[in-house]
């Protein structure tokens, strides 16, 4: 027999009240914690892939779309631009690196990206098995693409047109797997990399687009809009690194005004994206805080009403030798136990939510989210929950110091 045991017994006695209080707290804490986790992981994923890329050029259109498709490989490309125009950027003294990208095909949903070895170097992807692509139609698989497609070195496969796995297949030309990358934690993991020539070769003998292909599917634009000429090679976009930050000031405007391409700055577009998402996140956060406050009120009400019922019990325990402080602590403990239970359940709930979200994200975008560590912010959340539990329990429990033992015992 001790105070903790009595507190627990009291909570168990009022199962529904305790459950309601703990559940509200669980919901509130869970929501906030899930938001923190998602925010952190999305932020990390986005920043990691953006690192070192100062600018992206591609066909005119939505700059955010250009960034999403070229850096993160999650949106459709904006169209194609002539390689010659991209290459002319290399002559600009402010520009250090130009990494051309050419997309449009996939294998089982994993995008096939034609590029140069600079792209591989930029993401510091290392070959785990086999070798780097050197001839047209040779590919190196990202770690996740290799795992999920079950392709091995030496295997050949036909790509499907478009960015969904159900596009029609290019059966006449087959890619050959020559290598597999180590996991990098970046976008490379979910790609199939090859050189630019492969993509050109595949589309050289342009087939007519199959029935059912959407009119404005950017992946088909090259086929439909512009006929192929040997001398006019095209790419989808190019990642640009500047030699110094001065480039940021002049080059994007030059490109936008003087060429058929558009220039988009990843940092600006991603900030814009996050500020758009931010409105939703802020709303959810406020909602979660409201739920937490209601949880506090629920703890308060349930202790307040149970204290009224238990007034005689309190007087009895006081007459049997309990001090008022002891009983006060016992009641505080009830609030704290609810707070801790709600907090732990909330943290578990947020992990479950993250896992579900991560599974969906993996299916749709091939991005994995799998960091379940406790965040530093969640320690503050624990402190907040404890303070809430303490306050909600302390307010009604202060009455214990005003309880008249003799009168309470005589009243019944």
């Amino acid at each position: 027999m001790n105070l903790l045991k009595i507190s627990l017994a009291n909570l168990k006695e009022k199962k529904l009240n305790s459950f309601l209080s703990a559940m509200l707290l669980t919901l509130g804490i869970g929501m906030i914690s899930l938001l923190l986790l998602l925010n952190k992981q999305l932020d990390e994923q986005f920043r990691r892939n953006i690192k070192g890329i100062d600018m992206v050029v591609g066909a005119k259109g939505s700059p955010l779309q250009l960034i999403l498709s070229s850096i993160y490989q999650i949106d459709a490309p904006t169209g194609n631009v002539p390689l010659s125009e991209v290459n002319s950027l290399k002559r600009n003294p402010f520009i250090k690196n130009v990494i051309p990208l050419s997309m449009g095909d996939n294998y089982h949903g994993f995008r096939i990206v034609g590029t140069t070895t600079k792209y591989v170097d930029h993401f510091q992807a290392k070959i785990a098995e086999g070798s780097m692509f050197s001839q047209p139609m040779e590919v190196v698989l990202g770690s996740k693409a290799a795992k999920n497609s079950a392709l091995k070195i030496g295997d050949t496969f036909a790509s499907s047109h478009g960015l969904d796995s159900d596009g029609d297949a290019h059966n006449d030309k087959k890619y050959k797997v020559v290598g597999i990358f180590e996991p990098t934690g970046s976008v490379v993991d979910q790609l199939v990399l090859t050189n630019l020539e492969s993509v050109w070769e595949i589309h050289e003998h342009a087939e007519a687009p199959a029935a059912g292909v959407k009119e404005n599917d950017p992946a088909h634009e090259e086929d439909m809009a512009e006929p192929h000429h040997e001398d006019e090679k095209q790419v989808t976009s190019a990642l640009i690194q500047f030699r110094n930050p001065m480039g940021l000031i002049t080059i994007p405007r030059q490109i936008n005004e003087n060429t058929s391409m558009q220039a988009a700055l990843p940092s600006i577009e991603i900030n814009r994206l996050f500020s758009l998402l931010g409105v939703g996140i802020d709303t959810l956060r406020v909602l979660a805080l409201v739920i937490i406050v209601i949880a506090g009120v629920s703890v308060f009400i349930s202790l307040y009403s149970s204290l009224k019922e238990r007034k005689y019990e309190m007087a009895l325990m006081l007459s049997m030798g309990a001090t008022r402080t002891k009983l006060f602590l016992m009641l505080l403990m009830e609030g704290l136990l609810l707070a801790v239970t709600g907090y732990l359940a909330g943290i578990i709930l947020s992990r479950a939510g993250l896992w579900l979200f991560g599974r969906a994200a993996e299916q749709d975008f091939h991005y994995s989210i799998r960091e379940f560590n406790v965040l530093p912010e969640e320690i503050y959340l624990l402190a907040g929950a404890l303070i809430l539990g303490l306050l909600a329990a302390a307010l009604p429990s202060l009455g214990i110091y005003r309880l008249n033992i003799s009168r309470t015992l005589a009243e019944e």
Partner: protein
Amino acid sequence: MITSKNLHFSYSSQKQFSFPDISCNDKEALLILGQSGRGKTTFLHLLALLLQPDSGNIHIAGKELSGLSSTERTNIRAKNLGIIYQRAHFVSALSVLDNILLSSYLAGNKQDKEKAGYLAEQLGFAEHLHKKTTQLSQGEQQRVSIARALMNNPNVILADEPTSNLDDNNCQKVIDLLKKQSFSIGASLVVVTHDQRLKDEFPNQVFL
């Protein structure tokens, strides 16, 4: 052993009580009879140190008990007094056994489960030890509160209308057990009641 002298208490200037002197030795029993409104419960609360008298003094186990702080009174009450109330009240969330052990815990004594079991055996509710108190009948509840009062081997047992809610059969049982148990631990038993059924049970009587 408990004695009181010249006890006087007032709730207000209209509601004043003066109480007769009492004395009850170890192993003895004393019945205090009085009709409603005569201050029976007030008298018991004074003896139980739950109220402070305006004047007069109380001795328990030979110790003079005036001018003590509330903490000291709480300690003396916990260690020397066993109190049985008119209606048996318990901490409803706890089992019968835990309610009995609670008195040892709150008095700072060892929580002796064997003793609780023995008392339950003696008082005839051993099979109910692990039930909630609300599942017991009133007679059983009153017997549990006797066990609770006995747990700390008190010097004095005070009972406030212990039988008024009980039928004749249970009344007889409870009062026999009270007398027998308090005699066996050598305590003084003071019963405050208006229950006329108890008149013939106690040779020592005081009227309010």
